[in-house]
């Protein structure tokens, strides 16, 4: 069970603001999702635990990157080729 305090902390880590009046609803939903995972847990480890596959590696050969215009086109704001982001530190 997750309480409101925990939801508030996780929201903080994720940089998401949840209005206080929505907190109870979020906490209920949060717990519902966790309950669902508990159902998944009852299925046991078969298949999931045994990850039979292995990672296949690639050669260290460079390939062209995206054009900068394309990169910046996805950014909400940019400056001198950089993506502009809210100050964090």
């Amino acid at each position, binding site marked *: 069970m997750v309480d409101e305090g925990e939801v508030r902390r996780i929201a903080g880590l994720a940089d998401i603001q949840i209005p206080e009046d929505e907190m109870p609803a979020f906490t209920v939903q949060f717990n519902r999702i966790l309950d669902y995972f508990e159902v998944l847990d009852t299925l046991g480890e078969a298949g999931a635990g045994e990850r039979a596959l292995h990672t296949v590696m690639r050669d*260290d050969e460079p390939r062209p990157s*995206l054009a900068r215009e394309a990169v910046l086109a996805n950014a909400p704001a940019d400056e001198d080729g950089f993506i502009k982001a809210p*100050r964090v530190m």
Partner: protein
Amino acid sequence: MSGVVIGLEIHCQLDTRTKLFCPCSTDYRDDGPNTHVCPVCLGLPGTMPAVNRTAVEYALRVAKAFHCEVPVECEFSRKNYFYPDLPKGYQITQYDRPLALGGYIEIEGDGGLEKRVRLTRIHIEEDPGRLVHKGGGDRARYSLVDYNRSGVPLIEIVTDPDLSSPKEARRLIEHLRATLEYLDVYDPEKEGSLRVDANVSIAGHERVEIKNISSYRGVEKALTFEITRQRSLIRRGVAVERETRHFVEERGTTRASRTKVEEHDYRYFPEPDLPPLRVADRAAAIELPELPAARRERFRVQYGLSPNHARTLTGNPGLAEFFETVAGDDPVLAATWVADTLLGELNYRGRPVGSVGPARFSALLALLKSGRITDRSGVEVLRIVLDGDEHPDAVVERLGLAVTGDDTVSAAIAEVIAEFPQAVADYRAGRGNAINYLAGQVMKKTRGQADPRELGRRLADALAEDGPCT
């Protein structure tokens, strides 16, 4: 320093051609921001990481060089946190199944004896992007993000808390850096290619983590500052708080970080896009080159070098190779001139040893060995050779630096004795220092070509001979 306990987490960029999970080139040094990025390293939805084999090979070389145990399989994990330098909202790293465990790095301890610093683990991870704050970190109102660095392969080497002083920490980093260069997995010229977090405590008190140390000189500075800070708190009876601090390079101090994220807040979980990685067989197949410690020992035995010269000259592979090229039939002379003179001159000019032609340097050594020029002229010739495009023989010829025959020096001594009667009188009156002044005058007349050791004796003889006895 008694009671100081230090452990390090060292991040090194691996010098691969492409990033860890995508084929973007890592050679962005001369290019503008966000020119070496693709959907994978931007974390666009629907993209899949593909592991760079060379990065894994390089990491395994390091693991083997430091005697680590490499498990049959390792696994990547996601470390979740939100920061603009991390486009996906998580970093792909390794958590509970790292590439390598245990091992050790041998350094010279503060007592002068070999000391084994145990390693906890080595793992592979991707570098985050780079943040720029215009007008200085404190005043900028927003962050500028460059994702060129995002996804560059890193290894993180975690040591046990076995270090007992900032000096030992610096030595460990220096030794690590040299080893990485010998292994050919690291480019020290790349800015920010080696970054350190340090845990430091005074025995019996809480531990502080210092983040953001980006040079190996910074490590010693940051730790020295932090130890002084903690000691002064303890002296005043204030408890050292367990916290994370940032190193402020410009000021040589540390300051408390505002955010407090605990390890469990990262919510690590196995990276679902990457099944486990088989590494043990690859590790077993790796053949290591001669590493710094072995080469140091060989230099002492094969060339008869002093421990100090052997240590200095094996400091990086380029220097060691240069020395071996010019060692010739007088390796001790070569070692002295490379370690004690050439390195200083290069350092002063901010140039690497690779910029010096070994043939020219050998020619200089030949001039010195045969006694054709004095040590003093040797330094002058070296400087001219480094700054221009002239052969040492030509410099000696042009400036007439070849050691002058006895006649010229004798003549100069006679002239000086005649020209500086006051100094002569002083000397004869028992003020021994006056002879240095006279020797300087002879040097001036002969343009420094008289052998200084010889000169002192001959000048004394001359002054004793023809002076009026007192």
